[in-house]
């Protein structure tokens, strides 16, 4: 049997050695890891507008440098508050959606990326919600009419591979969102993921068999998440000269 003194000394030495070693490795890799993460997030945002990338590329064709360059040249970043006002001096990429979700609704900040290509603007909004096991999130690109979806990309923290994880792994799932409309005759309806197959071609997409909870999570996330941007879109619409693109006035 070992004395308490020995055990204490042993444990203290072991934990210190391990802590120092891990901190060292972490520090040595931190910069590259942060860079990797930044590029990964930017790729996710760009994949929402994958149909409109320069040169007809898809996101996976782009090199890391291309991603950073496109972001530099073609993307304007805004940070919004819940009243739809632009927060000065804050970039969209500095907003951590996971942290924002923990705040009371009125205090949240929203990232907005405006991507421009061939004279067209695309408004990319970020949404976040709950899947079956953990959080899910996504980026939705809206066309200039602020109604038609130009593309979407999703990701998740821990959904089941082959089931819930299909929202990310199966490119056919996000592709379904292209061309869907979030307004029905001027009324906000968002897009619904329908179990057993979409019935309304304008506002619904097919669900994933075996992943109903994740699919419902996507529906819920889209409904709430896009609605947060409503005040800002409202301002955009009333400010723009030909802003009657939504069918409200008809």
């Amino acid at each position, binding site marked *: 049997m070992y004395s308490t003194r020995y*055990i204490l000394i042993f444990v203290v030495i*072991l934990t210190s050695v391990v802590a120092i070693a891990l901190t060292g490795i972490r520090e040595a890799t931190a910069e590259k890891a942060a860079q990797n*993460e930044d590029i990964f997030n930017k790729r996710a945002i760009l994949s929402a507008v994958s149909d409109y990338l320069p040169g007809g590329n898809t996101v996976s064709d782009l090199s890391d440098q291309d991603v950073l360059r496109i972001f530099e040249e073609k993307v304007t970043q805004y940070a919004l508050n819940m009243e739809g006002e632009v927060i000065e001096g804050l970039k969209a990429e500095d907003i951590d959606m996971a942290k924002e979700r923990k705040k009371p609704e009125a205090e949240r900040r929203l990232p907005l990326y405006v991507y421009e290509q061939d004279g067209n603007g695309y408004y990319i909004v970020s949404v976040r919600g709950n899947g079956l096991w953990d959080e899910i999130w996504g980026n939705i690109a809206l066309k200039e009419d602020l109604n038609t979806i130009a593309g979407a990309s999703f990701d998740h923290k821990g959904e089941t591979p082959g089931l819930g994880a299909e929202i990310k792994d199966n490119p056919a799932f996000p592709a379904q969102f292209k061309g869907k409309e979030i307004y029905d005759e001027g009324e906000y309806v968002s897009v619904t993921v329908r179990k057993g197959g979409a019935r309304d071609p304008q506002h619904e997409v097919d669900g994933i068999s*075996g992943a109903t909870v994740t699919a419902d999570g996507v529906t819920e996330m889209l409904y709430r998440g896009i609605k947060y941007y409503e005040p800002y879109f409202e301002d955009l619409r009333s400010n723009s000269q030909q802003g009657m693109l939504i069918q409200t006035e008809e």
Partner: protein
Amino acid sequence: MAETAVKEKVTREPMLPFGKKERKLITDPLNDNNPITVQVLGICSALAVTSLVYPSVVMAIAVVFVIGFSSLFTSMLRNYIPKQVRMIVQLVIIASLVTVVELTLRYLNYPVYKQLSVYIGLIITNCIVMGRLEAFSMANKPWRSFLDGIGNGLGYGLILIAVGVVREIFGKGTLFAGSPIELKIIGPTAGYLINTTDNAFFGWYVNNNLMVLPAAAMFIIGIFIWIQRSYNTKLVDVS
């Protein structure tokens, strides 16, 4: 030529011998003492990650690394580890190696890290790792413990990948989905090797949704155990 061979033998033999006994440490867990099908350890992660082959392969590599090096370090410290806190010490070693794996993946391939971050954490809870540390490394020399760890990691990985192959082919009709070398085997569109829509023979075929669920892994492992025991009769428990 002969001289150098002799020299090498002389310098290497005492440090890292690789004789019959050592080879057995690697090959035994592949069949006679397989951690999953014979020791029945590590079942939980075998059910969780095997719905696709690619995560199974990465998981297998990560486990081989973690179990090999935690066996090595535990064995090196075995005479100094106080018996009262040995479990905690083993956990510290395993957990720090898992963190090393995680940090390395973040550094080298962020998308794969993102995809696997949940499973990487699961290695800590994998009973094979701690089982081998307790049963072998605490009582054996570092080199042999290292080999035993690698062997058990490989035995685990072998079953993991085999289950993954069966589940992915019959559940999704693909192989290595999510990796750069994705293969489309059987499915209803032209991109697949066997296109079920205009194939007279496979027209009836649809993917089996049960295969995607963890329960399928249980059946498949069961079938593997059956097959293994019908060939390897010394494993059959007659009592």
